[in-house]
């Protein structure tokens, strides 16, 4: 019963923390905030403990919660425990990071409010995952949306934050709408609200449920084309919150997809294809959009889309291979997706946290104004580098392992009986490979421009290394990133024993050890034979005496070749307005030219809907806002006549 107790006390601690933070909203002492954060940290540790005990011990926890007359059953099985573990881990490091970060957030009220909402946010996510009851799931899901909305709106004074807030809200509610719809269908056909009852659905309904779940969770996860809220909401919120949202919240959506897909009966082939297409397009477009971003946090947000895509690819592959009854490969794909979920949670939180340190130090999010931070912020730089290596899927870090697993799944698509499908999978494979290569390119850019060479602005020059708590928070994640990568072989041996499958993974520990050994030998050898003189000198600049930051390669310059190659994806619109002094357009007066990047999905998917709604609403406003009485009466007169006609026709 200890794990259950751990979990429950974690929930209790978070409730207390959020309540106290709300009560002491005006308190100025930073000590009390430390206490709140200590509560959150403790709760996260408890969650981790309970999750680990389930993962290692294997016994699912089950208990329940009374919620406005509902008996919401909570159950922590292995899947839930895995996600709770992720939440606990990221929550822990984010909370540690916040120990010093929170002091930089605006006014006292904002600081305390942020902590309170953070506690609610973590709590709601844990409960969503634990909830084994559809309504409970929905309740906590909404709680998660609302608390994260508040967190996005922390800096509400800024116009863009408000825009981000409303956008985020609409999208997240749209996702809830689809979930409600799906759950309502399940409830109708199964009769009860336990999640497990989903098994009894008739085929058509199952497909409908699947589509609306895919839409609902897809929106929340930020899969393209429903991704637009992500690049708005992430930059707007404080960095620890971005880390939580990107590292954990969108993973909760992934949890939803996995949970329900595992349960849904009568899986169709096209479900898997749909998820695969969603995943591939998100992965590729996400990274391509990320390449052109120069807002550091938005760049990371687009990478979240990319990684969600990768996770979805894994899930799609799982569905495809299990449809073709290849359970071993399917399971490998599922494990790859789940492992990537964990990995992405770790490295993306790490990246967001270090980006937060950077943004805090330089007071800008624009990477074109950064540079040279390696010297002023060495620890942050090193941590960001670890994150960057991990997200670029380079061995021996964890990001590589999960992508490797996916590659292996792709490579074994020859076993599928349908040749067409095999070809499709190979095509998807090539796109996937492109994605991971582009991600590496993008992070070379991000790391290189932000941390290397000369500072590009005064602020970047004055940047200071962040406090020990912030470093510690990131360091936990960084160590995990390395550990999960290097020890992946050993970990998956254990997992494989439990799950009853074997993973054909290379032993990265052995390889890293070899690499270290070779490195040592090389180092000694080079020192032995080479000239040890070192000279520090100016960078060669074709003879220009002193180098300045204007001569450096910029981020736009760096990504330009790739942008040119993919220019068909980035649509641009050229605006050229000119006015003249005379009628014959001969004497030029003034002009305005600009090249706009068309946001494809915004332009063709979101805005038309918004425009339509706005048109309807203003039309209705005009119609309904008359001073006189008569138009109103006329409307009811017409309605009554119509009803009469209906009666005349209907009743015979």
């Amino acid at each position: 019963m200890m794990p259950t107790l751990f979990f429950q006390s974690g929930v209790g601690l978070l409730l207390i923390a959020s309540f106290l933070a709300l009560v002491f909203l005006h308190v100025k002492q930073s000590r009390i905030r430390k206490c709140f954060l200590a509560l959150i940290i403790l709760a996260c540790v408890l969650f981790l403990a309970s999750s680990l005990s389930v993962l290692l011990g294997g016994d699912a926890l089950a208990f329940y919660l009374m919620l406005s007359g509902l008996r919401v059953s909570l159950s922590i099985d292995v899947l839930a425990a895995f996600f709770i573990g992720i939440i606990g881990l990221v929550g822990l490091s984010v909370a540690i990071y916040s120990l010093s970060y929170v002091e930089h957030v605006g006014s006292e009220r904002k600081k305390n409010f942020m902590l309170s909402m953070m506690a609610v946010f973590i709590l709601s996510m844990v409960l969503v995952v634990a909830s084994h009851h559809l309504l409970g799931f929905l309740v906590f899901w909404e709680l998660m949306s609302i608390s994260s909305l508040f967190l996005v709106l922390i800096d509400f004074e800024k116009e863009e934050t408000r825009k981000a807030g409303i956008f985020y809200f609409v999208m997240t509610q749209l996702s809830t709408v689809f979930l409600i719809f799906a759950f309502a269908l399940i409830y109708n056909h199964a009769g009860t609200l336990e999640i497990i009852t989903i098994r009894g659905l008739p085929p058509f309904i199952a497909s409908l449920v699947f589509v609306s779940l895919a839409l609902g969770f897809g929106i929340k996860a930020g899969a393209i084309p429903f991704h637009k809220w992500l690049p708005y909401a992430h930059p707007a919120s404080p960095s620890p919150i971005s880390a939580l949202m990107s590292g954990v919240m969108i993973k909760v959506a992934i949890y939803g997809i996995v949970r329900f897909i595992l349960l849904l009966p009568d899986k169709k082939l096209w479900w898997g294809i749909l998820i695969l297409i969603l995943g591939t397009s998100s992965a590729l477009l996400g990274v391509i959009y990320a390449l052109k971003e120069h807002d550091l946090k938005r760049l990371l947000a687009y990478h979240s889309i990319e990684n969600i895509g990768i996770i979805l690819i894994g899930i799609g592959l799982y569905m495809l291979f299990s449809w073709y009854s290849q359970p071993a490969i399917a399971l490998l794909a599922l494990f790859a997706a789940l492992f990537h979920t964990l990995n992405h949670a770790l490295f993306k939180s790490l990246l967001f946290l270090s980006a937060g340190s950077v943004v805090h130090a330089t007071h800008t999010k624009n990477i074109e104004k950064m540079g040279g931070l390696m010297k002023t912020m060495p620890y942050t730089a090193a941590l960001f580098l670890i994150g960057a290596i991990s997200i670029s899927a380079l061995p021996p870090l964890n990001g590589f392992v999960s992508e490797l697993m996916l590659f292996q799944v792709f490579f074994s698509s020859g076993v599928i009986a349908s040749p067409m499908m095999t070809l499709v999978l190979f095509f998807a494979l090539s796109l996937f490979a492109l994605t991971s290569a582009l991600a590496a390119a993008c992070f070379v850019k991000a790391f290189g421009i932000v941390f290397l060479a000369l500072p590009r602005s005064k602020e970047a020059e004055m940047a200071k290394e962040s406090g020990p708590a912030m470093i510690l928070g990131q360091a936990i994640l960084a160590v995990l990133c390395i550990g999960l990568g290097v020890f992946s072989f050993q970990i998956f041996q254990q997992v494989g024993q439990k799950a009853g499958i074997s993973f054909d993974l290379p032993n990265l520990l052995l390889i890293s050890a070899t690499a270290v050994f070779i490195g040592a030998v090389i180092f000694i050898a080079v020192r032995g034979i080479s000239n040890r003189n070192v000279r520090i000198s100016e960078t060669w600049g074709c003879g220009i005496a002193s180098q300045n930051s204007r001569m450096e390669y910029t981020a736009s310059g760096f990504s330009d070749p790739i942008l040119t190659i993919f220019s068909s994806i980035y649509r641009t619109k050229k605006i050229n307005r000119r006015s003249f002094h005379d009628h014959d357009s001969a004497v030029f007066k003034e002009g305005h030219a600009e090249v706009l990047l068309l946001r494809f999905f915004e332009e063709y998917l979101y805005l038309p809907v918004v425009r339509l709604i706005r048109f309807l609403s203003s039309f209705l406003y005009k119609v309904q806002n008359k001073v006189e009485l008569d138009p109103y009466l006329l409307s009811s007169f017409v309605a009554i006549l119509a009803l009469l006609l209906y009666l005349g026709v209907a009743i015979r």
Partner: protein
Amino acid sequence: MTIQLIDELIKVCMVLLVVLTALVISRRNLISLINTYALHSLVLSAIAFLFFLGEGANVFLYASILTIITKLWLIPALLKRTQKIMKIYTDLEYHYLHPTSSIFLSLFIVIIVFLAFSGIKDDLGLDPFNYFGVVMGFSLVLIGFMIIFSRIKIITKTIGYLVMENGVVLLSFFVGEMPFLIEVMVLMDLLALVAITSILGFGMNSSIEEFHKRLNPFRNWFKKVDEK
């Protein structure tokens, strides 16, 4: 009197009602409008009385007497008083419909009502005569509605509402008598409604201070006539 004769008389009365309604649609002078309404109600009470003669149910007699008291005397008096206070004599403008188009629309209304009610004719057990009455009653309701939204002045609108109400009463005669208590309460309601619309109508045409002076206490309304 024989049943046939009574039926014939009722038919005559109904024709009269139609004519009077057409007059209400097209009248512009408020005084004559109110008078036309009074006549309209008189014909209605006559029909009630004829029903009493034909079927012998006392409810019809009471209804007839009540109609005369309230609609021939009380309500027109109230309306005239309002009209005097507000110093409005004509209602010239129309919204959406002009008298001619109103008449055509009325025809259309009658057809639609005829169509709509044909489905329940047998269920209600109506013979053609009663059915005609029901259709006429309902059409009167709709025509009254039409008057409300096509005329501008509040008094005209009120009269339109009263015409509607007359239509309802007419319809109820042909369908079957309501309990008397209900009829009385409906009439009380009608009175209150006319009073309130008159007061509101006054409010729309005067300043707020004057309006509130009249609004409170109520009795002032019936005492003073504005001398301005």
